[in-house]
């Protein structure tokens, strides 16, 4: 009796928690509302299955609990029932899979008008690179990474000279324009994750990965690293600001190109970064040193 009641309470409690608790996803800021919708469909189907199975169990425990003189029925198989249950399950699974794969095909098909933005992860900071006037990013190579060339842009590639380099500072994006995020790492795995954009992808040293999205509202969003990358992992925060077109152009105008940064007279450029809110990697590493020696 108590057991059946607890089982019912688990179902009721879980449903109420789902409906009433304050913990839910962050307001979306990208075009991936499709993903949210797929999650809602999944919640409905799985919620109904969970409630049905557990309530059925509760009923059985109540109705068929042992009492003196009871005897169980003897029924090894029931082919019809088993076939029906298999078919119903297959239908339910298809109802989840089909919309999921449909949205996935959108997720992996980058629109042709998407602007490329490169994200570079390293322990434990984010840097960015935007194509210059030629609209093309220069090629890059981890072996070319040095103090003067922190992102490893290949100096001999003419396409790279006018690339805008944003080292360990905030990224700005114009609202309403699709962007293809090209993801690169120069040391370990990282993962570029902005919860409000609903998208994330690992960054692998030696490869370039990608995802695309369209920012749908202006604002300031926190970038989190979502792939364990060493001790500084939880502090590897960054900032993406989604701007109106005018603000974006103004910001872009203040940035420096690869050619400007690598010109010999320009030294100490790291000190006059603008708009930086994230702690850069060396600073985090230094903090960890102090923490570790406590």
């Amino acid at each position: 009796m108590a057991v059946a009641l607890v089982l019912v309470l688990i179902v009721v409690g879980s449903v109420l928690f789902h409906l009433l608790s304050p913990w839910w996803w962050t307001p979306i800021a990208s075009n991936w509302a499709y993903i949210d919708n797929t999650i809602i469909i999944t919640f409905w189907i799985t919620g109904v299955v969970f409630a049905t199975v557990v309530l059925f169990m509760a009923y059985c425990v109540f109705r068929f609990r042992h009492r003196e003189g009871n005897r169980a029925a003897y029924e090894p198989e029931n082919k019809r029932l088993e076939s029906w249950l298999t078919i119903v399950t297959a239908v339910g699974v298809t109802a989840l899979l089909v919309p999921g794969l449909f949205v996935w095909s959108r997720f992996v098909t980058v629109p042709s008008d998407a602007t490329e933005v490169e994200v570079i992860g390293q322990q434990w900071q984010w840097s960015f690179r935007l194509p210059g006037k030629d609209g093309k990013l220069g090629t890059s190579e981890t072996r070319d990474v040095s103090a003067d060339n922190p992102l490893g842009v290949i100096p001999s590639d003419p396409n790279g000279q006018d690339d805008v380099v944003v080292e360990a500072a905030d990224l700005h994006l114009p609202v309403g324009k699709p962007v293809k995020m090209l993801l690169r790492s120069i040391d370990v795995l990282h993962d570029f994750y902005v919860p409000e954009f609903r998208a994330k992808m690992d960054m692998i040293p030696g490869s370039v990965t990608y995802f695309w999205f369209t920012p749908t509202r202006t604002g300031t969003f926190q970038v989190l690293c979502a792939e364990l990358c060493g001790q500084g992992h939880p502090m590897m925060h960054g900032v993406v600001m989604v701007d109106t077109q005018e603000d974006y152009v103004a910001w872009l105008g203040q940035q420096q190109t690869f050619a400007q940064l690598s010109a010999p007279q320009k030294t100490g450029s790291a000190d006059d970064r603008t708009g930086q809110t994230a702690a850069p990697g060396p600073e985090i590493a230094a903090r960890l040193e102090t923490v570790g020696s406590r």
Partner: protein
Amino acid sequence: MVDITPADGIPPAEVAEVELYHPHSWWTKYVFSQDAKVIAVQYSATATAIGLVALVLSWLMRLQLGFPGTFDFITPEAYYQFITMHGMIMVIYLLTALFLGGFGNYLIPLMVGARDMVFPYVNMLSYWIYLLAVLVLVSSFFAPGGPTGAGWTLYPPQAIMSGTPGGQDWGIILMLSSLILFIIGFTMGGLNYVVTVLQGRTRGMTMMRLPLTVWGIFTATVMALLAFPALFVASVMMLLDRVLGTSFFMPAISEMGEQLPHNGGSPILFQHLFWFFGHPEVYIVALPAFGIVSDLISTHARKNIFGYRMMVWAIVGIGALSFVVWAHHMYVSGMHPYFGFFFATTTLIIAIPTAIKVYNWVLTLWRGDIHLTIPMLFALAFIVTFVNGGLTGLFLGNVVVDVPLSDTMFVVAHFHMVMGVAPILVVFGAIYHWYPKVTGRMLNETLGRFHFWVTFLGAYLIFFPMHYLGLMGVPRRYAELTDMTIMTESAHHLNSFISVMAFIVGFAQMVFLFNLIWSVRHGREAGGNPWRATTLEWQTPQTPPAHGNFGKDLPIVYRWAYDYSVPGAKEDFIPQNMPGSFGPSREPA
């Protein structure tokens, strides 16, 4: 309804029995024993001991998550060492060892009607190599630099780099060495289990008369023999990368301004090898639990398991399918996105045989005679948590839904519910069920019920709300949840609540351990078959069973394992070794 056929005549034995090794001293009887039952207890005790280490580690990490900044000694470095060792211990050294080395060793020979495993000496070696693996693992806590903090997935390149605890010290070397030893030890035991099930069954024990416990352990062992080699080679290759400076998994890397000598390797190759092992591993833990819980439900509901043949084929089908779903752990790894279509489809297909198993468990309860014994309570709790955890798998398996949820607390909640809580509830149920056979005494009922309610409700309260933190976007593997704009104040309170529940649930396990030890001497005498069960381990002449299990003559099996409440029979159970004249066998032909 199925066709009803009486039990066939039993063919005569084709091969004469082989004489067992008989121990000559206390050492060969209790320490270097070749008796599968002693080895089972050794495996279980070692797994429990190392499992307690993992439990303490989980408390330490929950201290940090629930009350950030309060405990100075939990540095990020220490936190990552805690989570890594907790995960690896729970998955490999506790659950795998306990289900296969513990339950497998104890139950396979008894349930199939054999005197022992087919290769007792190799079986003994298997345990001692496992113990060595555990000792190497534990030694990393005392090594310079401490254990590895690479996460239980050990993803390179960070696993062997200086930014990760133990990456350039002894931690990762000891971890990989321990895994290699574990796999060698497991292979010795695993071959034994498979051969014993295939060749050691007594007369009349056809494959389709095996209890589902044996089917679950057997299938899981076959899978483990196929899956562990992938982890073995991955471990060897990473060890070479770390020690000899090869570049299997290491591309060109610029670490903190310094160019490393590696070049040309593939970090993602490791992930494929790891998950080719890692996904079957989930079912290596789950299938024995599926099998055992089927037998618990059937015995304590006094009813045959519903759809036995479907259950067997579901176990085999899940086992086979689980080898073609591994990359669903890698949807956001940066592999080619078109793989997503294939792996999402295979992953959701595996939900169908899994759902069939759930239906058959609850349909076994239907029109049963349900005794709410402690094993039955744990079995019911298993179904609740397994259904919950299995259904959230449909979120994560559906590639595009995984994109926002991957690497968040949703994943942590999901896999703890489905392969942590659910199988461990079965472990508990199984211990309450078979403890009387192992020791001859019952576990204390009051302590048992206390243990059950705190563990079940507490674990549900830990992991159910945790999904919603993940939905909010809270990432996993964060040693600090400070300065997170997405986290509301109340989310931090939820974390504190989860931590408090974790301490309570952990405490209940101490009560359980006390019960285990106390009842050896003070428990109620159990008799040979306290649950009035049908399977052969309950029909032994002595309890606990003596060396050789079955006295002078091996039992002969006349019926399937589920003749409960057979119409016309006097008792509500008919043991498998009871000839046909004591009542009709109605096993499905």
